Protein backbone atom coordinates (compact mmCIF):
# COMPACT_ATOMS: atom_id res chain seq x y z
CA UNK A 1 0.00 0.00 0.00
CA UNK A 2 3.07 2.29 0.10
CA UNK A 3 4.56 3.93 3.15
CA UNK A 4 2.62 7.19 2.91
CA UNK A 5 -0.68 5.38 2.50
CA UNK A 6 0.14 2.96 5.32
CA UNK A 7 0.87 5.80 7.72
CA UNK A 8 -2.25 7.67 6.64
CA UNK A 9 -4.39 4.59 7.25
CA UNK A 10 -2.98 4.12 10.75
CA UNK A 11 -3.63 7.77 11.45
CA UNK A 12 -7.19 7.52 10.19
CA UNK A 13 -7.86 4.50 12.42
CA UNK A 14 -6.60 6.47 15.41
CA UNK A 15 -8.45 9.70 14.68
CA UNK A 16 -11.79 8.93 13.08
CA UNK A 17 -14.80 8.80 15.33
CA UNK A 18 -15.61 5.38 13.88
CA UNK A 19 -12.63 3.46 12.49
CA UNK A 20 -13.26 2.11 9.03
CA UNK A 21 -13.40 -1.71 8.94
CA UNK A 22 -11.91 -1.92 5.44
CA UNK A 23 -8.93 0.16 6.56
CA UNK A 24 -8.46 -1.99 9.65
CA UNK A 25 -8.49 -5.09 7.46
CA UNK A 26 -5.77 -3.61 5.24
CA UNK A 27 -3.58 -2.82 8.24
CA UNK A 28 -3.60 -6.38 9.55
CA UNK A 29 -4.37 -7.32 13.13
CA UNK A 30 -7.65 -5.50 13.83
CA UNK A 31 -7.56 -6.15 17.57
CA UNK A 32 -4.08 -4.65 17.99
CA UNK A 33 -4.71 -1.61 15.79
CA UNK A 34 -7.72 -0.84 17.95
CA UNK A 35 -5.43 -1.05 21.00
CA UNK A 36 -3.12 1.50 19.33
CA UNK A 37 -6.19 3.67 18.67
CA UNK A 38 -7.16 3.50 22.33
CA UNK A 39 -3.62 4.31 23.50
CA UNK A 40 -3.40 7.37 21.25
CA UNK A 41 -6.81 8.69 22.25
CA UNK A 42 -6.48 8.04 25.98
CA UNK A 43 -3.05 9.69 26.16
CA UNK A 44 -4.38 12.83 24.47
CA UNK A 45 -7.48 12.87 26.66
CA UNK A 46 -5.39 12.55 29.85
CA UNK A 47 -3.25 15.50 28.81
CA UNK A 48 -6.31 17.61 28.00
CA UNK A 49 -7.89 16.71 31.34
CA UNK A 50 -4.68 17.67 33.10
CA UNK A 51 -4.37 21.06 31.40
CA UNK A 52 -8.08 21.93 31.47
CA UNK A 53 -9.15 20.19 34.68
CA UNK A 54 -11.85 22.65 35.79
CA UNK A 55 -13.24 22.83 32.27
CA UNK A 56 -13.44 19.05 31.99
CA UNK A 57 -15.11 18.76 35.40
CA UNK A 58 -17.64 21.41 34.43
CA UNK A 59 -18.31 19.87 31.02
CA UNK A 60 -18.69 16.34 32.32
CA UNK A 61 -17.19 13.20 30.88
CA UNK A 62 -19.71 12.78 28.05
CA UNK A 63 -19.30 16.33 26.71
CA UNK A 64 -15.51 16.08 26.89
CA UNK A 65 -15.69 12.77 25.06
CA UNK A 66 -17.86 14.26 22.31
CA UNK A 67 -15.60 17.31 21.98
CA UNK A 68 -12.51 15.11 21.83
CA UNK A 69 -14.10 12.91 19.19
CA UNK A 70 -14.87 15.92 17.02
CA UNK A 71 -11.45 17.49 17.70
CA UNK A 72 -9.56 14.36 16.66
CA UNK A 73 -11.66 13.93 13.55
CA UNK A 74 -11.61 17.50 12.22
CA UNK A 75 -8.74 19.37 13.89
CA UNK A 76 -6.25 16.88 15.40
CA UNK A 77 -3.06 17.98 17.18
CA UNK A 78 -0.45 19.46 14.89
CA UNK A 79 2.13 20.28 17.52
CA UNK A 80 5.18 18.24 18.51
CA UNK A 81 5.05 19.77 21.96
CA UNK A 82 2.76 17.63 24.08
CA UNK A 83 2.23 20.49 26.52
CA UNK A 84 0.57 22.47 23.70
CA UNK A 85 -2.10 19.84 23.02
CA UNK A 86 -4.46 21.17 25.72
CA UNK A 87 -4.33 24.71 24.30
CA UNK A 88 -4.72 23.41 20.75
CA UNK A 89 -7.80 21.50 21.87
CA UNK A 90 -9.14 24.57 23.72
CA UNK A 91 -8.82 26.77 20.64
CA UNK A 92 -10.81 24.24 18.60
CA UNK A 93 -13.57 23.45 21.06
CA UNK A 94 -14.25 26.92 22.49
CA UNK A 95 -16.27 28.04 19.43
CA UNK A 96 -18.10 24.70 19.34
CA UNK A 97 -19.09 25.02 22.99
CA UNK A 98 -20.07 28.67 22.51
CA UNK A 99 -22.59 27.54 19.91
CA UNK A 100 -23.82 24.53 21.87
CA UNK A 101 -26.83 25.18 24.16
CA UNK A 102 -26.45 21.76 25.78
CA UNK A 103 -23.27 22.74 27.66
CA UNK A 104 -23.06 25.45 30.36
CA UNK A 105 -22.86 28.94 28.85
CA UNK A 106 -19.66 29.72 30.75
CA UNK A 107 -17.83 26.60 29.50
CA UNK A 108 -16.10 28.17 26.49
CA UNK A 109 -14.90 31.07 28.65
CA UNK A 110 -13.60 28.77 31.37
CA UNK A 111 -11.84 26.72 28.70
CA UNK A 112 -10.19 29.81 27.19
CA UNK A 113 -9.13 31.03 30.63
CA UNK A 114 -7.66 27.69 31.71
CA UNK A 115 -5.84 27.36 28.39
CA UNK A 116 -4.29 30.79 28.93
CA UNK A 117 -3.12 29.84 32.43
CA UNK A 118 -1.72 26.54 31.12
CA UNK A 119 0.11 28.32 28.31
CA UNK A 120 1.51 31.16 30.42
CA UNK A 121 2.93 28.71 32.98
CA UNK A 122 5.32 27.44 30.30
CA UNK A 123 6.07 30.57 28.28
CA UNK A 124 9.68 31.63 28.17
CA UNK A 125 9.64 34.94 30.06
CA UNK A 126 13.11 35.93 28.91
CA UNK A 127 13.43 38.87 26.50
CA UNK A 128 16.24 38.63 23.94
CA UNK A 129 16.34 42.31 22.95
CA UNK A 130 17.91 45.12 24.98
CA UNK A 131 15.65 46.73 27.58
CA UNK A 132 16.14 50.39 28.48
CA UNK A 133 14.80 52.27 31.49
CA UNK A 134 11.09 52.98 31.25
CA UNK A 135 10.26 56.16 29.30
CA UNK A 136 6.98 57.62 28.05
CA UNK A 137 8.47 58.48 24.66
CA UNK A 138 9.52 54.91 23.92
CA UNK A 139 7.65 51.70 23.18
CA UNK A 140 7.22 49.63 26.32
CA UNK A 141 8.64 46.11 26.59
CA UNK A 142 6.05 43.76 28.07
CA UNK A 143 6.64 40.39 29.66
CA UNK A 144 6.32 37.63 27.04
CA UNK A 145 4.54 35.52 29.68
CA UNK A 146 1.33 37.52 29.39
CA UNK A 147 -2.06 36.80 27.84
CA UNK A 148 -5.08 39.13 27.81
CA UNK A 149 -8.64 37.84 27.91
CA UNK A 150 -12.02 39.52 27.75
CA UNK A 151 -14.54 37.19 29.36
CA UNK A 152 -18.27 37.22 29.99
CA UNK A 153 -18.12 35.14 33.18
CA UNK A 154 -16.04 35.42 36.34
CA UNK A 155 -14.13 32.22 35.60
CA UNK A 156 -10.78 33.42 36.96
CA UNK A 157 -12.12 32.85 40.47
CA UNK A 158 -13.29 29.47 41.72
CA UNK A 159 -16.83 29.86 43.13
CA UNK A 160 -18.10 27.81 46.05
CA UNK A 161 -20.30 26.00 43.58
CA UNK A 162 -18.24 25.22 40.48
CA UNK A 163 -21.35 24.97 38.37
CA UNK A 164 -22.28 28.59 39.13
CA UNK A 165 -19.99 31.15 37.55
CA UNK A 166 -21.34 34.69 37.72
CA UNK A 167 -22.16 36.33 34.39
CA UNK A 168 -20.17 39.55 34.34
CA UNK A 169 -17.76 41.08 31.83
CA UNK A 170 -14.16 40.69 33.02
CA UNK A 171 -10.94 41.99 31.54
CA UNK A 172 -8.15 39.70 32.69
CA UNK A 173 -4.37 39.74 32.36
CA UNK A 174 -2.88 36.27 32.90
CA UNK A 175 0.78 36.72 33.79
CA UNK A 176 3.83 34.96 35.18
CA UNK A 177 6.80 37.04 36.34
CA UNK A 178 10.23 35.98 35.04
CA UNK A 179 11.50 35.04 38.49
CA UNK A 180 8.38 33.20 39.62
CA UNK A 181 6.71 29.98 38.58
CA UNK A 182 3.21 30.99 39.68
CA UNK A 183 0.71 32.28 37.16
CA UNK A 184 -1.44 35.17 38.39
CA UNK A 185 -4.69 36.49 36.94
CA UNK A 186 -5.14 40.26 37.32
CA UNK A 187 -8.57 41.76 36.84
CA UNK A 188 -8.41 45.08 34.99
CA UNK A 189 -10.91 47.72 33.98
CA UNK A 190 -11.65 48.08 30.29
CA UNK A 191 -9.48 51.16 29.81
CA UNK A 192 -6.46 49.57 31.43
CA UNK A 193 -7.06 46.38 29.47
CA UNK A 194 -7.20 48.33 26.20
CA UNK A 195 -3.99 50.16 27.08
CA UNK A 196 -2.19 46.91 27.82
CA UNK A 197 -3.58 45.33 24.64
CA UNK A 198 -2.34 48.31 22.58
CA UNK A 199 1.09 48.16 24.18
CA UNK A 200 1.22 44.44 23.54
CA UNK A 201 0.64 45.00 19.81
CA UNK A 202 3.75 47.20 19.91
CA UNK A 203 5.18 49.78 17.55
CA UNK A 204 3.99 52.84 19.47
CA UNK A 205 5.28 54.81 22.45
CA UNK A 206 3.48 54.87 25.76
CA UNK A 207 2.35 58.41 25.00
CA UNK A 208 1.03 57.60 21.52
CA UNK A 209 -0.79 54.47 22.69
CA UNK A 210 -2.30 56.31 25.61
CA UNK A 211 -3.62 59.09 23.37
CA UNK A 212 -5.13 56.55 20.96
CA UNK A 213 -6.86 54.54 23.68
CA UNK A 214 -8.08 57.66 25.57
CA UNK A 215 -9.57 58.97 22.33
CA UNK A 216 -11.34 55.66 21.70
CA UNK A 217 -12.82 55.85 25.22
CA UNK A 218 -13.81 59.53 24.83
CA UNK A 219 -11.48 60.52 27.65
CA UNK A 220 -9.31 63.62 27.83
CA UNK A 221 -5.67 63.08 28.77
CA UNK A 222 -5.86 65.55 31.66
CA UNK A 223 -4.14 65.62 35.04
CA UNK A 224 -6.57 63.11 36.56
CA UNK A 225 -6.05 60.73 33.68
CA UNK A 226 -2.27 61.04 33.87
CA UNK A 227 -2.34 60.45 37.63
CA UNK A 228 -4.30 57.25 37.10
CA UNK A 229 -2.03 56.20 34.27
CA UNK A 230 1.07 56.67 36.44
CA UNK A 231 -0.45 54.51 39.17
CA UNK A 232 -1.23 51.76 36.64
CA UNK A 233 2.23 51.94 35.09
CA UNK A 234 3.92 51.74 38.49
CA UNK A 235 1.78 48.73 39.33
CA UNK A 236 2.58 46.97 36.03
CA UNK A 237 6.30 47.66 36.47
CA UNK A 238 6.14 46.37 40.05
CA UNK A 239 4.40 43.17 38.93
CA UNK A 240 6.88 42.61 36.10
CA UNK A 241 4.24 43.03 33.41
CA UNK A 242 6.11 46.03 32.00
CA UNK A 243 9.84 45.28 31.92
CA UNK A 244 11.04 48.67 30.67
CA UNK A 245 11.27 50.40 27.31
CA UNK A 246 12.66 49.29 23.98
CA UNK A 247 16.39 50.00 23.88
Amino acid sequence: MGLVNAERKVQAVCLRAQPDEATLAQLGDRRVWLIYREMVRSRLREEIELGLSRTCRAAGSAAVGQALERYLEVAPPRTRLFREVACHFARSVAPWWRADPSVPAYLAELCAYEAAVWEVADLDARVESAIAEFAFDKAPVLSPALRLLQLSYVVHQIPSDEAQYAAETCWIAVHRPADDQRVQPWRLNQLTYDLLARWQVGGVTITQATEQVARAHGRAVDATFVDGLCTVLADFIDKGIILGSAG
Partner: protein
Amino acid sequence: MQKSRVRGVGIGLRRALAEELFASDAPEIRWLEIHPENYVTRGGYFRTMLERARARWPIVTHGLTLGVGAVEPAEASYTRPLRQLLEELHVPWHSEHLCFSGTDGVMLHDLLPVPFDRPSIDTACARIAELRDTLQLPIAIENISYYTTLGEPQMPEFDFLLEVLERSDAKLLLDVNNVFVNSRNHDFDAYEYIERIPAERVVQIHVAGHLTRHDGLIIDTHGEAVRPEVYDLLEHTLRHTGEVPVLLERDQNIPCFAQVHAEVQRLDELYRRATGASWG
Protein backbone atom coordinates in the same frame (compact mmCIF):
# COMPACT_ATOMS: atom_id res chain seq x y z
CA MET B 1 30.09 19.10 31.31
CA GLN B 2 32.26 16.52 29.53
CA LYS B 3 30.62 14.06 27.16
CA SER B 4 32.57 11.12 28.60
CA ARG B 5 30.81 11.56 31.94
CA VAL B 6 27.73 9.66 30.71
CA ARG B 7 28.47 6.33 32.37
CA GLY B 8 26.66 3.92 34.65
CA VAL B 9 22.96 4.23 35.44
CA GLY B 10 20.76 7.27 34.80
CA ILE B 11 17.11 8.15 35.20
CA GLY B 12 14.69 10.32 33.29
CA LEU B 13 14.24 13.83 34.67
CA ARG B 14 10.56 13.95 35.69
CA ARG B 15 8.72 16.73 37.45
CA ALA B 16 7.14 14.29 39.90
CA LEU B 17 10.57 13.21 41.14
CA ALA B 18 12.61 16.35 40.63
CA GLU B 19 12.52 17.96 44.07
CA GLU B 20 13.35 14.69 45.86
CA LEU B 21 16.08 14.01 43.31
CA PHE B 22 17.65 17.43 43.84
CA ALA B 23 17.53 17.01 47.61
CA SER B 24 18.94 13.49 47.49
CA ASP B 25 22.37 12.07 47.92
CA ALA B 26 22.14 9.27 45.37
CA PRO B 27 25.58 8.70 43.87
CA GLU B 28 24.33 5.72 41.86
CA ILE B 29 22.37 8.15 39.64
CA ARG B 30 25.18 9.28 37.37
CA TRP B 31 23.34 11.07 34.57
CA LEU B 32 19.88 12.17 33.48
CA GLU B 33 17.87 11.81 30.30
CA ILE B 34 15.35 14.38 29.09
CA HIS B 35 12.78 14.45 26.33
CA PRO B 36 13.71 17.69 24.54
CA GLU B 37 10.09 18.34 23.50
CA ASN B 38 9.43 19.07 27.17
CA TYR B 39 12.05 21.84 27.29
CA VAL B 40 12.35 23.41 23.83
CA THR B 41 11.26 27.08 24.00
CA ARG B 42 9.85 26.49 27.48
CA GLY B 43 10.16 28.75 30.51
CA GLY B 44 8.71 28.45 33.99
CA TYR B 45 9.29 25.49 36.27
CA PHE B 46 10.63 23.17 33.55
CA ARG B 47 13.39 25.60 32.54
CA THR B 48 14.39 26.03 36.18
CA MET B 49 14.30 22.26 36.73
CA LEU B 50 16.59 21.69 33.75
CA GLU B 51 19.05 24.34 34.91
CA ARG B 52 19.25 22.74 38.34
CA ALA B 53 19.66 19.28 36.85
CA ARG B 54 22.42 20.17 34.41
CA ALA B 55 24.41 21.87 37.14
CA ARG B 56 24.82 18.48 38.80
CA TRP B 57 24.46 15.73 36.18
CA PRO B 58 25.41 15.13 32.55
CA ILE B 59 22.31 15.24 30.35
CA VAL B 60 21.37 13.02 27.41
CA THR B 61 18.43 13.82 25.10
CA HIS B 62 15.88 11.35 23.82
CA GLY B 63 13.26 12.65 21.41
CA LEU B 64 9.66 11.49 21.26
CA THR B 65 8.35 12.98 18.03
CA LEU B 66 11.03 12.81 15.34
CA GLY B 67 10.48 9.14 14.60
CA VAL B 68 12.74 8.34 11.66
CA GLY B 69 10.03 6.31 9.96
CA ALA B 70 8.09 9.49 9.22
CA VAL B 71 7.50 10.22 5.58
CA GLU B 72 7.89 13.96 6.11
CA PRO B 73 11.20 15.57 7.11
CA ALA B 74 11.22 17.47 10.40
CA GLU B 75 10.31 21.14 10.14
CA ALA B 76 12.99 23.75 10.84
CA SER B 77 10.69 25.57 13.26
CA TYR B 78 11.30 22.64 15.61
CA THR B 79 14.80 21.46 14.71
CA ARG B 80 16.29 24.96 15.05
CA PRO B 81 15.41 25.42 18.74
CA LEU B 82 16.13 21.72 19.29
CA ARG B 83 19.68 22.16 18.03
CA GLN B 84 20.08 25.23 20.23
CA LEU B 85 18.97 23.24 23.28
CA LEU B 86 21.28 20.32 22.49
CA GLU B 87 24.21 22.69 22.07
CA GLU B 88 23.43 24.30 25.43
CA LEU B 89 23.37 20.90 27.10
CA HIS B 90 26.54 19.54 25.39
CA VAL B 91 24.88 16.20 24.79
CA PRO B 92 27.10 13.44 23.39
CA TRP B 93 24.42 12.14 21.00
CA HIS B 94 20.72 12.55 20.37
CA SER B 95 18.30 9.65 20.04
CA GLU B 96 14.93 9.14 18.36
CA HIS B 97 12.76 6.10 17.65
CA LEU B 98 12.52 3.81 14.64
CA CYS B 99 8.83 4.54 14.22
CA PHE B 100 6.44 7.24 13.06
CA SER B 101 4.12 9.44 15.12
CA GLY B 102 1.90 11.04 12.51
CA THR B 103 1.74 12.27 8.96
CA ASP B 104 0.45 15.24 6.94
CA GLY B 105 1.45 17.56 9.79
CA VAL B 106 -0.64 15.71 12.40
CA MET B 107 1.04 14.49 15.58
CA LEU B 108 -0.45 11.48 17.37
CA HIS B 109 2.06 11.52 20.24
CA ASP B 110 2.63 7.78 20.16
CA LEU B 111 5.32 5.45 18.79
CA LEU B 112 3.77 3.62 15.84
CA PRO B 113 5.45 0.84 13.87
CA VAL B 114 6.46 1.29 10.26
CA PRO B 115 6.35 -1.54 7.69
CA PHE B 116 9.43 -3.75 7.81
CA ASP B 117 10.29 -3.24 4.15
CA ARG B 118 12.73 -1.50 1.81
CA PRO B 119 10.82 1.78 1.36
CA SER B 120 10.75 2.19 5.16
CA ILE B 121 14.50 1.55 5.32
CA ASP B 122 15.11 4.19 2.63
CA THR B 123 12.91 6.64 4.51
CA ALA B 124 14.58 6.00 7.87
CA CYS B 125 18.04 6.42 6.38
CA ALA B 126 17.01 9.72 4.81
CA ARG B 127 15.54 11.04 8.08
CA ILE B 128 18.63 9.98 10.05
CA ALA B 129 20.96 11.71 7.58
CA GLU B 130 18.87 14.89 7.76
CA LEU B 131 18.87 14.85 11.54
CA ARG B 132 22.61 14.28 11.72
CA ASP B 133 23.20 17.20 9.34
CA THR B 134 20.78 19.48 11.16
CA LEU B 135 21.80 18.70 14.71
CA GLN B 136 25.49 18.12 13.99
CA LEU B 137 25.53 15.22 16.43
CA PRO B 138 25.72 11.44 16.29
CA ILE B 139 22.18 10.09 15.99
CA ALA B 140 21.04 6.99 17.83
CA ILE B 141 17.78 5.20 17.07
CA GLU B 142 15.77 3.16 19.50
CA ASN B 143 14.14 -0.19 18.70
CA ILE B 144 10.48 0.22 19.68
CA SER B 145 7.95 -2.16 21.17
CA TYR B 146 5.63 -3.09 18.32
CA TYR B 147 2.40 -4.90 19.05
CA THR B 148 1.73 -5.86 15.45
CA THR B 149 3.34 -5.30 12.10
CA LEU B 150 2.06 -2.67 9.70
CA GLY B 151 1.04 -4.66 6.63
CA GLU B 152 2.82 -7.85 5.57
CA PRO B 153 6.48 -7.64 6.69
CA GLN B 154 9.16 -8.23 4.04
CA MET B 155 11.74 -9.12 6.67
CA PRO B 156 12.05 -9.77 10.43
CA GLU B 157 12.25 -6.73 12.69
CA PHE B 158 15.87 -7.52 13.57
CA ASP B 159 16.99 -7.51 9.92
CA PHE B 160 15.06 -4.28 9.39
CA LEU B 161 16.76 -2.62 12.35
CA LEU B 162 20.19 -3.88 11.38
CA GLU B 163 19.91 -2.67 7.80
CA VAL B 164 18.80 0.79 8.94
CA LEU B 165 21.75 0.96 11.35
CA GLU B 166 24.29 -0.16 8.79
CA ARG B 167 23.05 1.88 5.86
CA SER B 168 22.60 5.06 7.88
CA ASP B 169 25.65 4.48 10.10
CA ALA B 170 23.45 5.36 13.08
CA LYS B 171 24.11 4.42 16.68
CA LEU B 172 21.68 2.23 18.60
CA LEU B 173 19.77 3.05 21.73
CA LEU B 174 19.01 -0.54 22.67
CA ASP B 175 15.81 -0.83 24.67
CA VAL B 176 16.18 -4.15 26.44
CA ASN B 177 12.62 -4.10 27.76
CA ASN B 178 11.36 -3.59 24.20
CA VAL B 179 13.37 -6.61 23.04
CA PHE B 180 11.85 -8.63 25.87
CA VAL B 181 8.30 -7.41 25.17
CA ASN B 182 8.66 -8.06 21.43
CA SER B 183 10.13 -11.51 22.03
CA ARG B 184 7.08 -12.48 24.09
CA ASN B 185 4.53 -10.87 21.79
CA HIS B 186 6.10 -12.20 18.59
CA ASP B 187 7.65 -15.42 19.84
CA PHE B 188 11.39 -15.10 19.27
CA ASP B 189 14.47 -15.63 21.45
CA ALA B 190 15.43 -12.36 23.14
CA TYR B 191 18.90 -13.64 24.07
CA GLU B 192 19.67 -14.60 20.50
CA TYR B 193 18.43 -11.18 19.35
CA ILE B 194 20.78 -9.43 21.79
CA GLU B 195 23.76 -11.56 20.75
CA ARG B 196 23.28 -10.56 17.11
CA ILE B 197 23.32 -6.83 17.94
CA PRO B 198 26.55 -5.17 16.72
CA ALA B 199 27.90 -4.11 20.11
CA GLU B 200 30.00 -1.27 18.72
CA ARG B 201 26.84 0.59 17.64
CA VAL B 202 25.19 0.61 21.07
CA VAL B 203 25.63 3.95 22.84
CA GLN B 204 22.84 3.70 25.39
CA ILE B 205 20.48 1.14 26.89
CA HIS B 206 16.92 1.54 28.22
CA VAL B 207 15.15 -0.66 30.74
CA ALA B 208 11.61 -0.23 31.98
CA GLY B 209 8.61 -2.04 33.35
CA HIS B 210 5.82 -3.51 31.28
CA LEU B 211 2.27 -4.71 31.73
CA THR B 212 0.60 -7.93 30.59
CA ARG B 213 -2.98 -7.32 29.49
CA HIS B 214 -5.82 -9.69 30.22
CA ASP B 215 -5.60 -10.95 26.62
CA GLY B 216 -1.90 -11.78 27.01
CA LEU B 217 -0.50 -8.89 24.96
CA ILE B 218 2.43 -7.25 26.76
CA ILE B 219 2.52 -3.47 26.64
CA ASP B 220 5.64 -1.37 27.25
CA THR B 221 4.05 1.01 29.74
CA HIS B 222 7.04 2.48 31.62
CA GLY B 223 4.62 2.35 34.52
CA GLU B 224 5.81 -0.62 36.57
CA ALA B 225 9.02 -1.80 38.18
CA VAL B 226 11.52 -3.59 35.95
CA ARG B 227 10.71 -7.31 35.86
CA PRO B 228 13.28 -9.91 37.00
CA GLU B 229 13.40 -11.41 33.49
CA VAL B 230 14.39 -7.99 32.11
CA TYR B 231 17.14 -7.61 34.72
CA ASP B 232 18.50 -10.97 33.55
CA LEU B 233 18.33 -9.92 29.92
CA LEU B 234 20.02 -6.63 30.77
CA GLU B 235 22.91 -8.41 32.44
CA HIS B 236 23.30 -10.60 29.38
CA THR B 237 23.18 -7.47 27.19
CA LEU B 238 25.85 -5.63 29.18
CA ARG B 239 28.16 -8.64 28.98
CA HIS B 240 27.71 -8.46 25.21
CA THR B 241 28.06 -4.70 24.75
CA GLY B 242 30.51 -3.86 27.50
CA GLU B 243 30.15 -0.63 29.43
CA VAL B 244 27.21 1.28 27.92
CA PRO B 245 25.12 3.73 30.01
CA VAL B 246 21.79 2.33 31.20
CA LEU B 247 18.65 4.40 31.73
CA LEU B 248 15.81 3.38 34.02
CA GLU B 249 12.63 4.66 32.32
CA ARG B 250 9.61 5.53 34.40
CA ASP B 251 6.93 7.72 32.82
CA GLN B 252 3.64 6.48 34.28
CA ASN B 253 2.50 5.58 37.75
CA ILE B 254 5.66 7.19 39.12
CA PRO B 255 6.51 5.90 42.61
CA CYS B 256 8.29 7.75 45.41
CA PHE B 257 11.91 8.63 44.87
CA ALA B 258 13.11 6.03 47.39
CA GLN B 259 11.61 3.28 45.24
CA VAL B 260 13.20 4.61 42.07
CA HIS B 261 16.50 4.96 43.89
CA ALA B 262 16.30 1.36 45.08
CA GLU B 263 15.84 0.22 41.47
CA VAL B 264 18.81 2.33 40.40
CA GLN B 265 20.93 0.78 43.15
CA ARG B 266 20.02 -2.68 41.93
CA LEU B 267 20.83 -1.68 38.36
CA ASP B 268 24.13 -0.12 39.43
CA GLU B 269 25.17 -3.34 41.15
CA LEU B 270 24.20 -5.35 38.07
CA TYR B 271 26.04 -2.88 35.82
CA ARG B 272 29.27 -3.17 37.79
CA ARG B 273 29.00 -6.94 37.94
CA ALA B 274 28.38 -7.31 34.21
CA THR B 275 30.88 -4.75 32.92
CA GLY B 276 33.56 -4.68 35.62
CA ALA B 277 33.10 -0.91 35.89
CA SER B 278 34.23 0.77 39.08
CA TRP B 279 33.58 4.32 40.15
CA GLY B 280 36.72 4.97 42.19
